[in-house]
């Protein structure tokens, strides 16, 4: 079997003739940048073949001499040396750690999904000779009335441990849909069980350590990105490769979560054994892939997933390395395209407790909108694509040190980065500012096309693009740019979100103006400029005090569930209460979408403040 060696990493892998270089790289765990899921469209997977013969070659159009598309180039009979140019290697695998407000010393509070209680049990005697397990459950019921289940593993050494603890034992219990599960019985350890809350985004994954005095959020790109930028291309991959597709994607996301947990534990000096629970949020497809559930029917009419309401599972069943007796909880989803992330978001923002209707817009790759109050909850999804999360764009990045997070004009365009570090790319809030500023400065027209000859606009390979920061200022030594294709993706993303919200509101006989608050959620930066979000028509033109930027509510919701089991029930209640609107079959959606694919919107009267500012 031919051996393919990837340079400069120097990693080799055996590959059958006929395997694409991209698949070989995936097998070798060598990340190759790729935004289209290996369909030969994005041309980001360019490699150079240094030695050996290959079969096929990505369509020559626009490829430089000696360059091949890894997804379209096949291993032939000979061994190969394949060099990955710098831009092809630009898959960020690095974990970013960010400090947050630390939790109190007595965290997590009583009532968490997993907690340890110290119990005094009466020692058995001839008058009170119930079994050890009944004795334990009897005592636990006095502490908290519930059904208790003692798994065999705990039962086995229960007698020894209770006696070893001299009937004064720490009992660690988890909340389960049917009651409680006893995870551990032993001598008092005076250590609370720690947890990790996880948000699996299509583009980025975030995890927060829930432990005393911990104040860390770790994030990284979802490595599944190498199989395509959105949930659809990943589902297609599962379908195309029935045997390995789904397990491969599952393994990638589990590895990502492993790396995040490792970074969190390392930062806080905590042992894996001390982590007793993962509480996981994310869209329906991401949760499917995390659990290894075959997701293919999510994509086919009538769009049905395997499971939305999931029971807790054992860590080893998922493959995550925390305390083996711990639990993995997944938040409930509503439908195939309205996932646990939106359930978590509704929980975190209290949307369902409000007196007056408000909206929650989750600007993720799989965008979702929920509208409601204490009386009703409705939701829909709108595929926004990864543009605002920095995916699929020439200089896109997630919100991390060095990401351009705000842009404004002082005659010339100015920008600042997260942490004031040299720019590595542009994150979501930076893109919002950049589009708004370019339109305002008339460097771009309202369809998003660059004006030839405007300052900063240059022509490369027959295409206009805007150079925000030249290579000599940038951290990566390459220009930080905005291309016409980037703009199109951003405009489509914001158009889809706005159109979805409009159609959903119309279905309710309401208007944006009827909403008390419009909450924008997402992990695309901390410095949302509301005026700019309205200027590009991402958000409606309502009084700015009604707009609230609420951050990553998916992760916040997961944290809330972890630390208070009451929220676990509430999340299930929310998921059950929410009415899902299918937009793909809605007759007006396409029309609304086209009219929203303009800056700010084709119906200018809907954006009076923007028109007034431009006059």
């Amino acid at each position, binding site marked *: 079997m031919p051996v393919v060696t990837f340079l400069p990493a120097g990693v080799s892998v055996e590959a059958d003739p006929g395997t694409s270089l991209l698949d070989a790289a995936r097998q070798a765990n060598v990340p190759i940048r790729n935004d289209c899921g290996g369909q030969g469209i994005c041309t980001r997977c360019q490699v150079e073949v240094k030695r050996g013969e290959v079969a096929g070659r990505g369509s020559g159009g626009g490829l430089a001499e000696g360059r091949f598309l890894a997804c379209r180039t096949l291993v032939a009979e000979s061994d190969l040396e394949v060099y990955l140019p710098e831009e092809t290697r630009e898959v960020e695998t690095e974990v970013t750690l960010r400090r947050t407000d630390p939790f109190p010393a007595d965290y997590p509070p009583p009532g968490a999904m997993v907690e340890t209680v110290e119990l005094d049990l009466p020692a058995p005697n001839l008058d009170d000779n119930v079994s050890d397990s009944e004795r334990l459950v009897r005592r636990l019921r006095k502490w908290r009335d519930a059904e208790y289940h003692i798994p065999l593993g705990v039962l086995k050494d229960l007698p020894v441990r209770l006696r070893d603890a001299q009937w004064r034992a720490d009992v660690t219990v988890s909340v389960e849909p049917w009651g409680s599960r006893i995870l551990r019985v032993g001598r008092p350890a005076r250590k609370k069980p720690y947890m990790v809350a996880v948000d699996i985004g299509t583009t980025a994954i975030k995890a927060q350590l829930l432990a005393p005095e911990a104040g860390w959020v770790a994030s990284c790109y979802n490595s599944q990105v190498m199989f395509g930028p959105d949930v659809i291309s990943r589902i297609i991959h599962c379908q195309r490769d029935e045997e390995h597709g789904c397990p491969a994607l599952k393994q990638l996301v589990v590895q990502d979560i492993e790396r995040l947990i490792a970074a969190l534990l390392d930062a806080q000096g905590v042992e894996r054994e001390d982590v007793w629970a993962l509480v996981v949020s994310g869209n329906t497809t991401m949760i499917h892939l995390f659990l290894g559930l075959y997701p293919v029917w999510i994509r086919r009419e009538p769009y049905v997933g395997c499971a939305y309401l999931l029971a807790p599972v054992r860590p080893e069943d998922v493959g995550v390395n925390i305390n083996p007796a711990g639990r993995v909880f997944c938040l409930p989803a509503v439908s195939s395209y309205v996932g646990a992330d939106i359930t978590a978001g509704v929980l975190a923002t209290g949307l369902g407790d409000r007196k007056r209707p408000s909206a929650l817009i989750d600007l993720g790759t799989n965008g979702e909108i929920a509208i409601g109050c204490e009386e009703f909850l409705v939701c829909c999804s709108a595929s926004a694509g990864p543009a605002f999360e920095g995916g699929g764009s020439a200089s896109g990045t997630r919100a991390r040190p060095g990401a351009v997070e705000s842009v404004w004009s002082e005659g010339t365009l100015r920008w600042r980065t997260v942490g004031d570090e040299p720019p590595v790319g542009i994150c979501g809030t930076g893109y919002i500012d950049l589009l708004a500023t370019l339109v305002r400065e008339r460097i771009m027209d*309202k*369809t998003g096309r660059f004006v030839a000859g405007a300052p900063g606009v240059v022509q490369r390979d027959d295409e206009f693009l805007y150079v925000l920061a030249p290579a000599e200022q940038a951290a990566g030594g390459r220009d930080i740019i905005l291309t016409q294709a980037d703009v199109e993706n951003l405009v489509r993303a914001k158009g889809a979100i706005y159109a979805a919200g409009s159609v959903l509101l119309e279905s309710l006989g309401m208007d944006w103006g009827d909403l008390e608050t419009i909450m924008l959620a997402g992990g695309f930066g901390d410095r949302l400029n509301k005026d700019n979000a309205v200027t590009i028509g991402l958000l409606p033109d309502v009084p700015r005090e009604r707009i609230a930027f609420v951050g990553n509510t998916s992760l916040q919701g997961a944290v809330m569930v972890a630390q208070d089991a009451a929220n676990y029930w509430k999340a299930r209640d929310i998921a059950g209460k929410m009415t899902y609107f299918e937009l793909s079959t809605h007759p007006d959606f396409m029309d609304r979408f086209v*009219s929203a694919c303009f800056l700010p919107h*084709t*119906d200018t009267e809907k954006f009076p403040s923007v028109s007034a500012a431009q006059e």
Partner: protein
Amino acid sequence: MPVPDVSERLSGAINEVTIGATEEQGGSRTRTVTIGGETSFPMLSFEGRYPHPPAFALQITAADVDDWHAEAKKHVADVAGDLEKWAGKCEEWGADLICLDLAAAHPDSGGRSPEQCADDVKRVLGASGLPLVVWGTDTDEVDNNILPKCTQAAAGENCLFGTAKELNYRTLAASCLADSHKIIAEAPSDINLSKQLHILLKDVGVNLQDIIMHPTTGALGFGMVYIYTTIERGRIAGLSGDTLMQQPVVVNIGKEIGRVKEAVSPEEESPQWGKVQVRAPLWEAATAVGYVEAGAELLVLRNPEALQQAKTALEALWPKPPESA
């Protein structure tokens, strides 16, 4: 029992746009043509004002007419190749305007230079007193090359120039502004795209009152239904007060008829369809009348016979002003 008044009162009106300038107005046209101004849907005479009947332009071109279908070609055979003669004929045939098609500038059709095109414009203006529509080539690069010269050549004549498109509007908009012409905004069968283009034109300084919109054109039996509903929906929006949809509509019918087999297939091939010399003009006229019913105000035809038929039909159909007025 009195009959209740069920007529709708609409808040908007279609813009009135005048094409052409007489000597007093700084041009050399013997008359001008005004279209638009309606306050209700077409033909609903009991509901609104219809100050101007639809206007008809006949297409002329310096390009070869080999690709014209036979029934249209036979009328122009004598004058094809002589723009001035052809232009003079148009008035005789009953046209309200002349539409000079610049297809000859396209590299595939002879590649006439910008100067030659500008000269064509001048010669047509000299040969006829009718207001002039000048239609570009559908190729952005060629249009951007020739149209500025042509607008300049027609400065003062208040012509109608087209077409501006979403991807290519700046050059033509700037030339029309500089030389005071009206402009055709072309957006393929979509109200939103059309409105977006009007906003873009407005942003570069074009007055919304100076725009005529072209939703693109399909002949009867060849996509007319799509354009018909687009015009209709746009009209509903405009009459309801949307200033971005209050522009009159032009359709360029003549060049579409040749695509329709039923209209031009010769008798020996399709005897069941009857005489082609009846069929072809009727098809063009029927398409034109259909578009007027949708709301179009300016119709560009090729076949003079079709023009006469359509005009005759519309004289009977077009609402007369109320007696009391």
